[in-house]
């Protein structure tokens, strides 16, 4: 009987260990937490989203406050439409804030940076960020630089 | 149980060798014109056999004559390619798995090496069929298993594991396991192989005891001719896919068939050839024969 007890205990330990490992991986090493919890959704329209992809962080002053949940092209506005979710902790973002697509480092991930405006009303579930700044496309930038350089050279 | 109606006319006499005698009494198992083979190798070609109720029937034959296959046909582990195998009035080959399992609960099988479950103790081995097939309270399971272990004289070994048992003991435990649900028919597959004379005597005593006291119809498959002639009520000799001889032990000793005489007396000289069938010896040696 003692043998059976220790077998059961060891099996229980194994299951516990496995579940704990999975739980740890799911909650601590993935973006699971920012998807769950309470949050509200807002929209933003950009002329060009560049390399932004679903799951990219939304940051304010470098602090992650939310995440991109969907990107699609809006055929009536001829702009890219981006859905964001923002954690409920950050529910006092002025309605006239600006969303820009920024790049982490020179070749890093793209994310959405929000810089606060000054309006007395705040963003809420379903509202749209009106002031946006599209992604800076490196090729365009280089192209501009080159044509500019050749002009001044003449 | 155990009504042995004398002079009851047998339903059908074993006809494979005309004139073979048939056992008297009610029939428990009947094989009619059974054919069976593994791939292209045929084991039985028209086997007829009757096992009378409540008696000990021995099936004797040389190694490789398909004796174990015969048991597997009777327990439904294998199905005859032709012919009928009837056990307790049901045709084994045509049963569904559920029906077959119901029939098997009335059977017990003692395997050659016992086939004990190596990860269970002796007690748990014997209790296994009870636990699987009934919902008896633990106390009754305990009583039942210990009673059967007492029958085979191994109540004291109930906490041991199969690896700790001698060959003879393992077989006795297996016997206890196969009779724990009181079967009506017992099959013994080579019950004496590899045992010392004392263990042989014990197993034989148990087989006879179970048959005489409980009226269990017993089928023993063996090649231990002298022991079987002493124990069985009725014997069959099988070879080359058929029954070659049948009768009570005393009558078999007087049979004139040269094959039966060779087998019963265990001599190397006789109709059973020493040589395996082969091509012409000279042709094989000098390679002049046709290629096979």
């Amino acid at each position, binding site marked *: 009987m003692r043998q059976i007890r220790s077998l*059961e205990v*060891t*099996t229980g330990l*194994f*299951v516990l260990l496995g579940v704990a490992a999975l739980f740890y991986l799911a909650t601590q090493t*993935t973006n699971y937490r920012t998807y769950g919890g309470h949050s509200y959704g807002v929209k933003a329209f950009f002329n060009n989203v560049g390399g932004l992809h679903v799951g990219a962080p939304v940051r304010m002053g470098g602090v992650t406050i939310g995440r991109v949940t969907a990107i699609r092209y809006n055929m009536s506005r001829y702009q890219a439409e981006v859905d964001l979710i923002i954690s409920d902790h950050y529910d006092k973002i002025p309605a006239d804030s600006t969303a820009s697509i920024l790049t982490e480092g020179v070749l890093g991930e793209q994310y959405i940076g929000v810089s606060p405006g000054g309006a007395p009303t705040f963003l809420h579930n379903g509202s749209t960020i009106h002031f946006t700044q599209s992604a800076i496309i490196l090729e365009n930038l280089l192209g501009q630089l080159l044509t500019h350089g050749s002009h001044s050279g003449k | 149980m155990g009504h042995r109606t004398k002079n009851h006319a047998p339903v059908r006499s074993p006809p494979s060798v005309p004139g073979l005698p048939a056992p008297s009494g009610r029939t428990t198992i009947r094989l009619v014109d059974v054919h069976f083979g593994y791939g292209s190798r045929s084991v039985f070609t028209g086997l007829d056999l009757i096992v009378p109720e409540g008696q000990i029937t021995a099936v004797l034959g040389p190694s490789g004559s398909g004796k174990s296959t015969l048991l597997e046909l009777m327990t439904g582990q294998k199905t005859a390619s032709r012919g009928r195998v009837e056990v307790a009035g049901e045709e084994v080959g045509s049963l569904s798995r559920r029906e077959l399992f119901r029939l098997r609960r009335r059977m017990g099988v003692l395997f050659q090496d016992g086939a004990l*479950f*190596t990860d269970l103790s002796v007690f748990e081995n014997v209790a296994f069929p009870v636990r*699987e097939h009934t919902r008896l309270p633990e106390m009754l399971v305990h009583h039942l298993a210990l009673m059967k272990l007492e029958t085979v004289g191994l109540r004291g070994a109930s906490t041991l594991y199969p690896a700790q048992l001698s060959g003879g003991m393992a077989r006795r435990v297996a016997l206890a396991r196969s009779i724990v649900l009181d079967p009506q028919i017992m099959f013994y597959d080579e019950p004496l192989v590899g045992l010392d004379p004392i263990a042989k005597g014990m197993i034989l005593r148990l087989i006879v005891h179970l048959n005489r006291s409980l009226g269990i119809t017993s089928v023993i498959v063996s090649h231990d001719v002298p022991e079987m002639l002493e124990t069985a009520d009725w014997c069959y000799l099988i070879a080359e896919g058929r029954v070659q001889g049948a009768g009570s032990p005393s009558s078999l000793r007087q049979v004139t068939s040269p094959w039966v005489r060779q087998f019963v007396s265990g001599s190397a000289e006789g109709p059973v050839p020493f040589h395996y069938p082969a091509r012409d010896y000279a042709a094989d040696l000098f390679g002049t024969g046709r290629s096979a």
Partner: protein
Amino acid sequence: MKRPGALFQPVLELLAALGRRFHFLAVSVTLIPSVLGRPRSFIEQLFYLGSVSVILIAVGGLFVGLVLTLQFYSALSRFGATSSLGGLVTLALLRELGPVLTALLFAGRAGTSLASELGLMRATRQIDAMEVMAVDPMRRVVAPRFLAGLLAMPLLAGIFSAMGVLGSYLIGIKMMGLDPGVFWSSMRHEVSFHSDFMNGMVKSLIFGVACSLISLYEGFHARPTAEGVGRATTRSVVISSMTILALDFLLTSLMF
């Protein structure tokens, strides 16, 4: 001498072999409810397949985490991107190395023990004994082992990956002196719960089914001789490993 049908013989045999395995799988799956009615033997099997492999899996995961971090560190430092180290290691572990290496180790440790155990039961006629006792060996022997195997696999893969992350932490932060904040946050940024973590879980579960099924099938249908048991054990590792790698490619391209 060959009949024209003989040409198709190998194809037919392959199909038949596949069919027999899927039938075995189907029977095992339908018997799962019966296992839940008898948790005793299931817990026992979970012990033999899971608990005894924990040390192997944990040590394996730790070392893979250590090596992976060293390799990625040297590669990433060429691009000045060591800030993504944590995320990259975790991605590799969760999506690929965790499920696959766990399955391969499982095939070698638990799979062989399943195959040899069942092969031995076949050779010593324990399976036949159950049959004639009117006890279905598929229900009594195969089903609990199957369920235990398929549940043990994701749990073991979790332990493997978690140990890998620990190994990565040890090298990245304790040895290479990366900033722990950057290390941990890069994981949360790069690793998605839905597409990465769940992707790995699905793989693991399918590997669990494949591995247990193959080992059980080979053992259950072993030839009842000592040689047969040996062959079944070898075959179980070979077939399991190949199946895992092939399935991995298939699943990765499906869930890409």
